[in-house]
């Protein structure tokens, strides 16, 4: 076993390299010009791709994962990627392609899933509700994140996650 110093570090010192400034020499410093950034943003804003089929496909992957999770007693580590990957895809793609309400609810649910300590029936319920909400948003064509119906959906999901955390805290006697 390698010898350790009094701070618990191995005695071999790390090697340290000074920053590489070649790129800086080549292109200079300073922020990119506002004109270019504006053009790039205008391009992003102008994208009209219909992403509904892709989102529905990701939702289907989530549903399959959830159905499997109900049948098998999945451990958290095994189960999570099957749900988080499509969920993350939905969040990313919807946000880049102007489905802002879907992006917002997905972002909230992704944060929740990445935070939960274990997977159980309550988490499945919340994820099933999320799938239903996104399908409804797609069916109704709700894109604007200030839409009152969309806000109601988000509030429902938020309330469900709060109930989940309250239940967990109560179970721990907190």
């Amino acid at each position, binding site marked *: 076993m390698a010898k350790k110093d009094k701070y618990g570090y191995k005695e071999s010192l790390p090697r*340290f*390299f000074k920053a590489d400034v070649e790129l800086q020499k080549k292109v200079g*410093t*300073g922020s990119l010009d506002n004109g*270019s*950034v504006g053009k790039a943003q205008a*391009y992003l804003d102008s994208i009209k791709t219909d992403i509904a089929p892709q989102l529905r496909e990701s939702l289907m992957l989530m549903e399959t994962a959830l159905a499997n999770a109900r049948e098998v007693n999945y451990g958290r580590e095994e189960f999570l990627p099957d749900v988080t990957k499509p969920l993350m*895809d939905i969040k990313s793609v919807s946000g880049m392609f102007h489905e802002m309400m879907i992006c917002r609810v997905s972002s909230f649910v*992704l944060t929740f899933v990445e935070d939960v300590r274990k997977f159980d029936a309550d988490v499945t319920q919340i994820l099933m509700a999320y799938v239903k909400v996104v399908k409804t948003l797609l069916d109704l064509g709700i894109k604007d994140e200030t839409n009152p119906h969309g806000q109601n959906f988000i509030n429902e999901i938020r309330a469900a996650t709060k109930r989940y955390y309250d239940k967990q805290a109560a179970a721990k006697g907190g």
Partner: protein
Amino acid sequence: MLEVVINSLKYLGVGQVFQARNGESGFQQFVRQKPDIVITDWEMEPVDGLELVKWIRLDRMSPRRTVPVIMMTGYAAGPRVALARDRGITEFLVKPFTANELARRIAYVIDHPRDFVETYEFFGPDRRRRKSQDYQGPERRNDE
């Protein structure tokens, strides 16, 4: 998504953009083209972005181990950021992103090139962004 990123980079005035669909072909492109900056997604198959970063930082074939790597992903949780950082990424860009956020990350890695640290289990940018004046422990780096 790949097309969107490439077009955004072109609008931002990035000269040459090389593209790849996964980490394996990305590494081949990296070795061949020796780009100034690498922008990679996290989720790719069969080789993901984390593995690509590992190859860039540690593989013998890597032509420039200190290249700035911007990891682009929809994940934003702290443990994910820490995991990517521990693999040696330079900057993290959460999707969805605006043109301004992309431009700022690119400008940042150019304006603030990071020192690099190599230990027996890590090679990547120095994780410390601030110098603490209160640190009482030993200075473990040769050049400090």
